[in-house]
């Protein structure tokens, strides 16, 4: 089992790139430890900005830095970044079109027993509804690296959500196909299409393996790019399947499920089942326990797929 969380990879990439790019600036809101960015602050203190526990300030300052030509990465727990400073993300970043990369760490229910104040199950919906904001949820450490490297090449706003804990590898050093804003096809099948994002990609893949044993073939799309959604991939693989399942660590409203449903409904109507967290208090537990409880692990997703195909 991999022991490196995706957030740590972000730090590694930024440390590597900041050596030759003095415009890279990392900002934290007393969150450098949680974000695994302490090493960046230690290595490049002159390219680091601490703002204290002040998320609105974090995003506003980042926008100012970007306006002056810097490449700021603002890292803070996704729960606070996406709601406390939502208006700064909307006005100072997206609307003013500043090159700020917003890194939401410990996203979804990563903080487990710490409760709803620390969960971010609205961030995909909120951020996606902002014009000129892109939303990415990388699935494993190898894809996280590719994504951050790609984002360093552009000058547009983006929100990136990662979880707190290490996740099982999907890709490898040698094999991590990645094209910006294009979903990665993990498997191709003709019975069901499973579209997943972030930490839900691995269980979606596990579900496909379980389904295969029962003679059900599934396509699995790693939709790390929730916005802009890879519409073409959804249509292509939905058309060759009987039903579509979406899986996300998010509220059932306004996230990946809603967006995929819009596309399928418009271009290739067929049954769509959205697997997500409930629109209620989330049961206390570790991510693994919670995902299992809500049928968001490999077995649960496979079970739902079979029901949908009945």
């Amino acid at each position, binding site marked *: 089992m991999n022991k490196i969380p995706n957030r740590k990879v972000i730090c590694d990439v930024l440390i590597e790139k900041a050596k030759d790019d003095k415009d890279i*600036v990392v900002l934290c809101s007393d969150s450098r430890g949680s974000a695994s960015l302490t090493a960046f602050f230690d290595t490049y203190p*002159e*390219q680091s*900005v601490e*703002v*204290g526990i*002040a998320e*609105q*300030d974090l*995003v*506003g*300052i*980042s*926008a*100012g*830095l*970007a*306006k*002056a*030509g*810097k490449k*700021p990465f603002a890292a803070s727990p996704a729960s606070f970044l996406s709601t406390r400073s939502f*208006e*700064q993300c909307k*006005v*100072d970043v997206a*609307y*003013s*079109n*500043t090159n700020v990369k917003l890194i939401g760490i410990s996203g979804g229910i990563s903080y487990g027993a710490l409760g709803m104040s620390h969960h971010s199950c609205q961030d995909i919906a909120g951020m996606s509804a902002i014009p000129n904001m892109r939303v990415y949820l990388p699935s494993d450490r190898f894809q996280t690296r590719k994504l951050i490297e790609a984002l360093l090449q552009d000058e547009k706003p983006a929100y990136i959500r990662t979880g707190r804990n290490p996740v099982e590898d999907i890709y490898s050093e040698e094999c991590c196909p990645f094209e910006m804003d294009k979903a990665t096809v993990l498997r191709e099948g003709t019975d069901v299409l499973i579209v997943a994002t972030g930490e839900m990609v691995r269980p979606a893949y596990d579900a496909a393996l379980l389904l295969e044993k029962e003679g059900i073939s599934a396509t699995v799309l790693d939709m790390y790019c929730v916005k802009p959604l890879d519409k073409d991939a959804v249509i292509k693989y939905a058309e060759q399947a009987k039903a579509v399942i979406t899986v996300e660590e998010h509220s059932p409203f306004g996230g990946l499920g809603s967006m995929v449903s819009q596309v399928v409904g418009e271009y290739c109507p067929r049954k769509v089942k959205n697997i997500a967290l409930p629109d209620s208090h989330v049961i206390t537990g570790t991510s693994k326990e919670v995902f299992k409880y809500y049928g968001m692990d490999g077995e649960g997703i496979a079970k739902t797929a079979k029901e949908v195909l009945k």
Partner: protein
Amino acid sequence: MDKALKALSYDYRMDTVNMIMSGGGGHIGGDMSEMEILMQLYLKEMNISPENQDDPNRDYFILSKGHAVESFYTILAHKGFYSLEEATAKFSKFGSEFIGHPNNVIPGVEMNSGSLGHGLPVAVGLAIAAKMDKRPSRVYVLMGDGELAEGSVWEGAMSGHNYNLDNLCAIVDRNHLQISGNTEDVMKQDDQAERWKAFGWHVVKADGNDFDSLEAAFAEARAHKGDPTVIIADTIKGKGSPVMENKAGWHHHLPTQEEYEQIMKDLEAGKEAALNE
């Protein structure tokens, strides 16, 4: 005192009122109170022009009280960023980029604003970047006094002090009125200067409708090292005509034809008086 500059402030006020009439609305009270502050910045203090608008060494200005945009558009037009006729004709019209808050697709406008309390943190970021790159840029941000109730202002104030941003100068348009009435009735500011001092800022008080007073205040801000400076600029909301001066109802009142004619008469008279002082 510069008579011509003072007279010009009345011309600019007339241009601003005409823009508001053309667009069918605007924030006239705050436009009038901030006029000398903007003029002093754009005509005297700041290193900014259409020629150097992309130069990283330029000075930066953020209109955090973004609703008072019509006087800002007027001044940018007179600086040569676009034509006044174009801005006036297009203001608030269908499909126009000249909307009722700063819009940075328009030349000369650095950042979009409108929701209050955003400007100071952004200005802090601009000032930190200038320090990082050892650029001579100075950063100015204009806030309204009612705006200071936003908590994000004080987050920005904390960080401006923390990073010793002596290249940052905030100005408060202290006209004592906000949309619901007197600022002290809506939410007390007590001694505002003490608040800024407590946050580690160098505080300068000025008459915000007097060019000499503003010139001295900006010179002091420039000379002060080690801390950011805030200029608390006392102004008169609706300055220029008794029809609208010190009246909260004129925050965004659209003049009637009769009021418009009286305001223009008063502004003409103000201009004459300035020239004959």
